[in-house]
């Protein structure tokens, strides 16, 4: 994963709450077996409307998405993060995120920053008054800056650290492999195993 420091880019105002991952990428676009190539599937249904915000020419090349509360709720599909990233977004700001989406974003180098409802409104108004306006998102200081304005965003310290350092989660965990081995040695013998496949005790239970 690349190190994340600051991003300066066009902000796109998405004045909608409860943007679920089915809207970010509908299920019919989940059939690819790669992690890339999802840019055209981003907001596929909404993008059919020429007035939808990311279709507007002044927001082309947007890198910072400013969304309403409860962004990324619903399905766990990481394809939602891949689609945002493939399209070119590096940052999503929202007053609240779906837990799984926020986790997925952190693993894939997409910054999910939590801002207050009031700051979302301020940023929306600012960007809508001057479409194409660029914001600077600074992960080290956890701020969004534009002109004289600076608003804070929240992100958990661990995710922030990993993003700043560009660290791979699995590699970090495997540093603790001895601990995992120790833990495994203490697991009860009766815990379920998937292998081998077993037949039920009676032909059809219940």
């Amino acid at each position, binding site marked *: 994963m690349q190190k994340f420091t600051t991003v300066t880019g066009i902000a796109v105002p998405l004045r*909608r*709450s409860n943007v679920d991952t089915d809207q970010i990428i509908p299920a019919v676009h989940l*059939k690819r077996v790669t992690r890339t190539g999802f840019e055209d599937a981003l907001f596929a249904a909404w993008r059919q409307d020429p007035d939808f915000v990311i279709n507007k020419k002044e927001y082309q090349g947007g890198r910072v998405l400013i969304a309403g509360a409860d962004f990324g*709720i619903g399905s*766990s599909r990481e394809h939602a993060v891949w689609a945002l990233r493939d399209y070119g977004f590096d940052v999503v700001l929202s007053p609240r995120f779906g837990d799984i989406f926020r986790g*997925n974003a952190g693993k894939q180098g997409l910054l999910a920053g939590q801002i207050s409802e009031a700051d979302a409104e301020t940023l929306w108004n600012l960007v809508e008054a001057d479409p194409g306006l660029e914001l600077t998102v600074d992960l080290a200081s956890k701020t969004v800056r534009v002109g004289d304005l600076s608003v804070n965003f929240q992100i958990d310290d661990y995710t922030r650290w990993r993003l700043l350092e560009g660290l791979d989660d699995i590699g970090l965990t495997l540093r603790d492999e001895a601990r995992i081995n120790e833990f495994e040695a203490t697991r009860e013998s009766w815990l*379920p*195993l998937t292998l081998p496949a077993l037949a039920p005790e009676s032909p059809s239970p219940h």
Partner: protein
Amino acid sequence: MTNPLPTSAVPSSTALRTLAEKVWDKHLVTKGENGTPDLIYIDLHLLHEVTSPQAFDGLRLAKRPLRRRDLTIATEDHNTPTLAIDKPIVDPTSRTQIDTLRHNCAEYGVRLHSLGDIEQGIVHVVGPQLGLTQPGITVVCGDSHTSTHGAFGAMALGIGTSEVEHVMATQTLPLNPFKTMAITVNGTLRSGVTAKDIILAVIAKIGTGGGAGYVLEYRGEAIRALSMEGRMTICNMSIEAGARAGMVAPDQVTYDYLQGRAHAPRGADWDAAIEYWQTLATDEGAIFDAEVTIDAGELEPFVTWGTNPGQGVSLSASVPNPADILDANERSAAERALEYMDLAAGTPMKDIRVDTVFLGSCTNSRVEDLRAAAEIIKGKTKAEGLRMMVVPGSARVRIEAEAEGLDQIFLDFGAEWRFAGCSMCLGMNPDQLEPGERCASTSNRNFEGRQGKGGRTHLVSPLVAAATAIRGTLSSPWDLIQDGDQ
């Protein structure tokens, strides 16, 4: 910057703890410090074709082995056809996705239940059915409805593909601590009101983000009175309230469900397991971070009117007026939802006519759900022009239903009797709504386009689905009685 990695791993076990905290502590490999997450051991990893290919690829690229194939199992469900399952899959990208799962499972030695196999089915129906889902274990799957397995008192988490790869490589996950919320459902459900109505009412009450950061524990007399199937329906939809997980403490109902299943412990192991399972219930006096109470006796059949699962009302109510909603965000969401759903504020829910009834999904596709619906429609006539699709949750559910003659009841009624899979719950396979088509669905999400582009979804219980299929408008079994129809 210093490395904030964890250094010690000693859970405190003297304080009064909730069910969720006990299961968490039991699986603590390392305790996080200075803001780092806890490292949690995973007992069971369920895979399916949609969220696993990129994870297998990652493993391959990093030349990492699959750590515990004996704690891993796969099935095909999201993208599989529910007709002509003996023929090659027509859509080439769908076929590639299924073939990819088969190659990956063969390469890494993962047990896979493919289309046509007797154990194939929706991953959240298959795990419990095999007896792999057990109280007090940790379960993950690259699917948000993994919360279903919490019905057994397991900590069951839906995860993304990066986490799937993480579990494949390490059999652990770094997880942030959670908050606990007690959802106590007192009293007794009236006849015609089900587990589905409880959970729809809970989500309407706390909202789609109300559970964010929490593990929900469902408690109280009405939860204790539910079968395992009903408890699974409730835990399944915990994610629709934004929760990390949902759980029910195990009891005799849980043990009776498990005993004799293929992977349930046997003999002395069974006794040892019971001994552990009996320690899991939340300690008397343990403190939850939040509490919600619902009176089951006041609940009616519940349906959604909007485009998120929190937008629901009692079936006897009317479509709400957005102007009455105080919160500006919720008001604009409601306005958008009514426009998408093509509904006018003030319309009685019971006046809403549907084109399709879908009985299926990991929420409501178990044999008990099929039985309940079949009992309502038996000997009745389907509303003219209405399509009803019945999709059992697993091949075994289908076989069991057929042994009881349920398939014939559905077929005589004029419903379609399909093979097992996720089907129209997410419309990834050909089972989709047409644009503008309206559906009463026993599934879990009424998001825009969820069941097919432009499709409109009302979430309902199996009983409401069945009554609606008879009357053509959103209805419950109570309406059938009023029709003079015992």
